Structures are given as C-alpha cells and as structure tokens.
C-alpha cells in the first residue's frame, strides 16, 4: 500500500492517520478536511468553550509539531466532493483527483435543522456564534433535551440566561438512558431554574422565538436547535458504497475493497450486542479510527470492531458516565447510591445480559467493574443480585 487518503480531519480521521504511522506505514498520506481549522475537539464546545472558560486554542487536538511529525499532506478547508471506487480516486472541491490504494471515510455528522434556522452546535464557529448571544438576562430556547441540548442549557443558566428546554418526548432521554434516569436529569435542570416543557413539538424557529405545532409562540432571544444529526455521506453518492443512516460497513469496518469508515459516520454490526449501530461518542471516534487504520494495513490479520462504547456528559456539577449499549434496554436496576441525591450507579439489562452501566458522581473504580460485566455480557440477575432496587 503506497497511497492512503483519509477524508475528515477530526477525531476519527486524525486517530486513523496517526495509527497508520504508528503501525509503520511510510507511504503517502493525505488528510482532507473541509473545516479551515486544525483538528480540534468538539466535546468542550458545549462545555468549557460555551461557558467562556476556554478559548478556541485550548481545543486543538495536537500541537503543530505533532501534526508536522505526521508527515501528511494536510488539506484543510478542502471538501471531498466525490468518490470513484473503480478508479480509486477521491475528487476534491478544487477539481483535483487524489488517487488512493486505501481510503478511510471519517466525515462525521452534521446537525439536523428546523425551518427558520436558529443556532446549531457542531463546529467551533457554531459555538462562538451561540456564545456571543448568551448574555445575562437573555432568553435561550433549546429545542431537544438530548445530551447536547441539556449541556448547553446548563451552561446558559450558569451564564445568567433564562432557559426554556423543549422536548417532544414525555421524559427527556428516556430511550437513551431509561425513564427513571431521564427524570433524574431533568429534575436537575428544573432545580437550576430551567423551564422544561415536554411533549411539545416545534414547527419552526422565528425571529421572536420558537413556534410550536399548535401555534403557540415561545418567546426567546436566541434558539438552539439540538434535534439530532445526519451523517455526511452525500459526497459518496454514485460511489457504490452502501449508505443508509451512515456508511454501511462489515464487522471489520470495511465498506468496499480497500475502503474503511470510522467515527460518527460509520455504521456496522457490533459483534457483542449483535445490533447495527452508529455511535456518536468521542471515545468511539478515536477507537474506530485506530481500528479502521489497523485493519486497512493488515488485511491478513483483521479484527472485528467490538468496543465497549463509552460516553460522558457534564451538566451543572454532575458528571455522567456510561459504558455499553443502553439503547433498547429492557430494565434498569440501581445498584449503588441514590437517584434522588444524583449519586448512583444504574445497570441496564437487555435480554438476560448486562448491556450497560451509567454512573453519576461515583468513583471510577466502581464504574470500571461494571464495564467488565458489560464487556463479558455477564448475566444480569446474578450480577445485580439482591442489592438492586428494581425500577
């Protein structure tokens, strides 16, 4: 293999590029990214950057000298517009075709939008634009009480804004973390003075705020739309790659001969949970980039990608951490602590196995033990034993 192209210069793409070099690949390496900035980290966008605790330079993923050491042709501010898998070339927006022997697709996702606009929060520029509007006394409406919307709501309260959090489901995050835990998290927002409105559907964003489906106007100075995301796969149209809510890969992350995908854009069937998934977690982006790079370089010794997914979120003084695949769970047991005090460990059951664990305010060792149970697919009943308060 003499020419490798990585498209997407963020967490997954960078991890892939670095892994190629660490594994001894010495051929040509091109890293293409449409954003003008050097690779930077997104999780702080809705946390320290939005809170104005950090400035943009704190978000860079690598120092300039580390990027130089990568010895890559770094094409920033350059969009890939098409892929020709027969000719093995990637077309760039400037009209050039970059040939490859191996390709890694790491183009991530972009926010879903609503009619009328409003802020979204995915890029550094998005976060700076939103931050400029969050001054004390201003009213922020957040559409969508997922993790992203909830973090932004918490930061905005900390900055002295009035915040209304609008959520179509009856309990925020119920499908992701379960009703009981979802309610704990939403109570935290209410106690911090956020107006939480569940079961409402937003029709459009207007200059005066947010128009609900029943016609009511929720007045706001700024609106953040945080209603999920869409994989960046349009540029792959006509390439022959399978696309369907993400780039469709096999268990090795391969999408076509010599073409791998990684990060938020990649969809594959997880061997441990036997579920087709696409994970939008920061740790997964790095792990998947590394795995794709290794499998691309070592065709004879490929390994299925079977991580224990990990996610964290910071809201007010709560650090929420979760391991495993919580979505689709059938039961939740609190095995330590107390939901009301917002210090607890909740263990998730899917089938008869431990499929996930979520902790708030607990020591790392405790969570790590449960991570082991998830990794092994330990039987749920004997694992939670008699200590579990079933919910």
């Amino acid at each position, binding site marked *: 293999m003499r020419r490798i192209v990585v498209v997407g210069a963020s967490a997954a793409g960078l991890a892939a590029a670095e892994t190629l070099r660490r594994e001894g690949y010495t051929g040509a390496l091109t890293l293409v990214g449409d954003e003008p900035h050097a690779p930077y980290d997104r999780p702080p966008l809705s946390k320290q950057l939005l809170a104005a605790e950090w400035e943009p330079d*704190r978000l860079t993923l690598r120092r300039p000298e580390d990027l130089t050491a990568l010895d890559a042709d770094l094409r920033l501010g350059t969009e890939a517009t098409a892929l020709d898998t027969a000719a093995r070339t990637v077309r760039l927006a400037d009209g050039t075709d970059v040939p490859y022997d191996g390709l890694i697709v790491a183009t991530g996702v972009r926010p879903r939008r609503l009619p009328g606009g409003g802020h979204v929060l995915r890029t550094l520029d998005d976060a700076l634009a939103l931050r400029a509007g969050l001054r004390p006394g201003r009213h922020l409406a957040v559409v969508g009480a997922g993790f992203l919307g909830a973090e932004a709501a918490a930061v905005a309260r900390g900055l002295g804004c009035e915040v209304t959090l609008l959520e179509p489901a009856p309990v925020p995050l119920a499908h992701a973390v379960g009703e009981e835990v979802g309610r704990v998290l939403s109570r935290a927002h209410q106690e911090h003075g956020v107006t939480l409105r569940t079961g409402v559907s937003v029709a459009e964003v207007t200059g005066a705020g947010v128009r609900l489906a029943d016609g009511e106007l929720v007045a706001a100075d700024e609106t953040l739309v945080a209603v999920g995301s869409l994989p960046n796969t349009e540029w792959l149209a006509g390439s022959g790659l399978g696309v369907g809510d993400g780039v469709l890969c096999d268990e090795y992350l391969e999408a076509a001969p010599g073409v791998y995908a990684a990060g938020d854009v990649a969809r594959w069937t997880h061997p441990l949970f036997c579920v087709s998934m696409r994970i939008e977690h920061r740790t997964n982006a790095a792990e998947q980039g*590394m795995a794709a790079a290794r499998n691309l370089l070592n065709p004879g010794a490929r390994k299925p990608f079977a991580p224990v997914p990990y996610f964290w979120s910071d809201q007010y003084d709560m650090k929420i951490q979760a391991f495993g695949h919580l979505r689709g769970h059938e039961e939740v047991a609190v095995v330590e602590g107390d939901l009301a005090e917002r210090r607890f460990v909740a263990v998730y059951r899917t089938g008869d196995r431990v499929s996930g664990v979520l902790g708030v305010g607990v020591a790392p060792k405790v969570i790590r033990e449960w991570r082991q149970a998830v990794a092994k697919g330990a039987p749920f009943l004997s694992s939670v034993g008699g200590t579990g308060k079933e919910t």
Partner: protein
Amino acid sequence: MKVELDTDKCVASGQCVLTAMDVFDQDDDGIVVLLAEEPGADQLDDVREAVAVCPAAAIRLVEK
C-alpha cells in the same frame, strides 16, 4: 521518553487506565494520575495507544 499530562483537560474517562494500567491511574474524581513519568521501553506502545485513545488530548509523550 516522558509522559506529560494536562489534567485540566482530562474528562475522567479512564481510557488511559484501561490501556496502560502501570502508567496511569485516576483519583477519586476520576482525574488522571501519573504512576510512571518515564515509562520503560516495554510500556511505550501502551502509552502511545493511551495518547491516541484519550478523548481529551490530555496525554502527550515527548522525547526527553
């Protein structure tokens, strides 16, 4: 080779501990703690892996 940490950036994910147990630990708040500032040659691969997998770019391996 020397390990440098930026503990302000650390998000307490514990990925480094899972990757290189002998080099990293976490305090009660989950923040990374360095057990070996200058890891031995046999540990370098694991440390490089930890650098790559840390979701906060909080770990760096530098030539002395």
